[in-house]
């Protein structure tokens, strides 16, 4: 098992004829993901890497029954694409688009939830269940199957941690990048809950960063409801307050959202926090051995 994506994943790619959409479609197919359809309005009838393209999600759904959609369309059109997938009843939508106005995401977030659909992202690398399916832009080769679930707000930092785990001989059940924007569809807590219930996942790595209070909420959730061991990492210990560090989310304001606060919250929840990404692998080995 794994969470969210696996061998049963039937993927739709929205924006499949675009540069990003086409490239990552190829990458995902090469990894072994079953890409069943693509959508680009006006490109219906074409094929991209052997995948049939439709004008609308509704048509793609009727013809190919996808159960996950990968949204790779530019920011001005991404909210519409997410809603089109949600209205068509696709239960999991992964949006990698960056630069979506945050107020658009407020509406989309609540609209998608009201439809009972799960959105991952936007501005996230996607997710991968190593050896089963990759629905994202991460390099597949750094992953290996195994017992560790990973959830992160970051992209390349996650790769760094995964790479350290893989090199240490520790595989991953699923690695989920929830995205770094202020408003995202799926939170740390949502993913922690799924890992807690996934029999294959034996330990969890949570990679957070400064800004917001999602890590604090995650720590509280772990304290109350997660029985599996969790290892944490927080980026931005040295970031000065009041300046935005790239991610729209990574900003310390009003003394809230500092790394110190987040680390303290994790430690209070019994979660060891690594000082360096590579140290995550050591801590994971320890918690796995202790089990």
């Amino acid at each position, binding site marked *: 098992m794994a969470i969210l994506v696996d061998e049963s994943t039937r993927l739709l790619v929205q924006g499949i004829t675009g540069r990003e959409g086409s490239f990552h479609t190829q*990458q995902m197919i090469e990894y072994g993901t079953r890409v069943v359809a693509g959508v680009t309005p006006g490109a219906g009838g074409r094929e991209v890497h052997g995948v049939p393209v439709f004008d609308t999600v509704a048509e793609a759904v009727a013809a190919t029954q996808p159960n996950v959609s990968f949204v790779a369309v530019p*920011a*001005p059109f991404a909210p519409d694409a997410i809603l089109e997938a949600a209205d068509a009843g696709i239960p999991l939508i992964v949006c990698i688009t*960056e*630069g*979506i*106005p*945050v*107020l658009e995401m*407020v*509406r989309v*977030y*609540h*609209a998608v939830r009201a439809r009972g659909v799960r959105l991952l992202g936007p501005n996230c690398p996607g997710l991968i269940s190593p050896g089963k399916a990759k629905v994202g*832009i*991460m*390099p597949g*080769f*750094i992953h290996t199957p195994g017992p560790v679930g990973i959830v*992160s*707000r*970051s*992209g*390349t*930092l*996650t*790769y*760094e941690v995964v*790479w350290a785990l893989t090199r240490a001989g520790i595989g991953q059940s699923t690695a989920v990048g929830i995205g*770094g924007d*202020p*408003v995202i569809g799926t939170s740390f807590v949502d993913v922690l809950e799924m890992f807690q219930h996934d029999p294959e996942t034996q330990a969890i790595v949570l990679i957070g*960063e*400064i800004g*917001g*209070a*999602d890590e604090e*909420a995650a720590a509280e959730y772990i304290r109350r409801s997660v029985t599996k061991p969790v290892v944490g*990492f927080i*980026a*931005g*210990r*040295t*970031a*000065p307050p009041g*300046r*935005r*560090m*790239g*991610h*729209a*989310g*990574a900003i310390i*304001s*009003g*003394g809230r959202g500092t790394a110190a606060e987040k680390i303290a919250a994790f430690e209070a929840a019994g979660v060891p926090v690594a*000082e*360096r*990404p*590579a140290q995550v692998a050591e801590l994971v080995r320890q918690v796995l051995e202790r089990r």
Partner: protein
Amino acid sequence: MDLHEYQAAEIFGRYGIPVNRGIVARTPEEARQAAEQLGGRVVVKAQVHAGGRGKAGGIRLANDPAEAEAAASQILGMEIRGRTVRKVLVAPAVAFDREYYLGVVLDRDARRIVVMASSAGGVDIEEVARERPEAVVREHADPFLGFLDYQARRLAFRLGIEPDLVRGFAAIARQLYQVYVDCDASLAEINPLVLTRDRTWMALDSKMVLDDNGLFRHPDLADLRDTEEEDPLEREARLAGISFVRLDGTVGCIVNGAGLSMATMDAIKLYGGEPANFLDIGGGASAQRVAAALRIVVADPNVRSILVNIFGGITRGDVVAQGLLEALREVDVRVPIVIRLVGTRQEEGRRLLEDAGFTVVDTMEEAAERAVAAAKSQ
């Protein structure tokens, strides 16, 4: 993107918010003329993207045009938190009885816009919120229906505003919410919103921050950017699509990804160094982006060494290496560079870089350690 007070006030005014209209001056002479035009007592206020301008002496009262000119000559050219004041706003001095705070912001935890108000206006609202949370009242806008009239009234009633003043207060709160939504703002704030001696409402200070991601659909607002005040390096970074924040250390950083950039800074600190900047070149690692990043980093005279940390991922290591070499040929770099590179076919990439005489290491930790040592030995 930050707006100046006078820009925010102009926008608020368009939505019907009663703002204290003033005149922008770039010279003491212009400030005197503005004061003459307005008549009576005026305030002269620094227009600069930095907080704490009041404490820094950037706001002065003037009884007549001559005093306004004098105040302006003191304020113009002043440095406030590293920013030079180039403009002042001259506005009528308003006599008032009470000061309120009114602000609209995103509540990330609730994924909703929140309208906040307090009867403790005119001071730092974050401090008020920390020390006397009950003094700040809040209403979350519905994500679909918006900020409703009853919610605006409820804010007023909860602040104990008298019935005859509630309608006016509620109208301003709803107008401010509408400004926020229509402009894709990340902050819209009136502090203080005053009740004048003749019992009318007036916004004495207006503040607005825009969501950079929303600017593409507001070209008119994007044009309000004060490029004059912007740090030239931050400006170059912005135009190149690079996230860049200048810091005080000596180790320059070039990293792809915001989280990895912060982790790299943390690693530098862990090994006893200080990062000179936060710099995220974004996804991929094109030669142009890397070249721009190099130019930005070497322009900082404090930089003693440079750490390039690229997790290429899907992009082939040799392609990233070639891009790096191209950029390094283009930019004159006189400090040591430590490169760390991961990607498919990373060995080929490493070989290319090493053949060109660069130090290439395997892990981020090693890279940080080496870059710190290099900076210290310079």
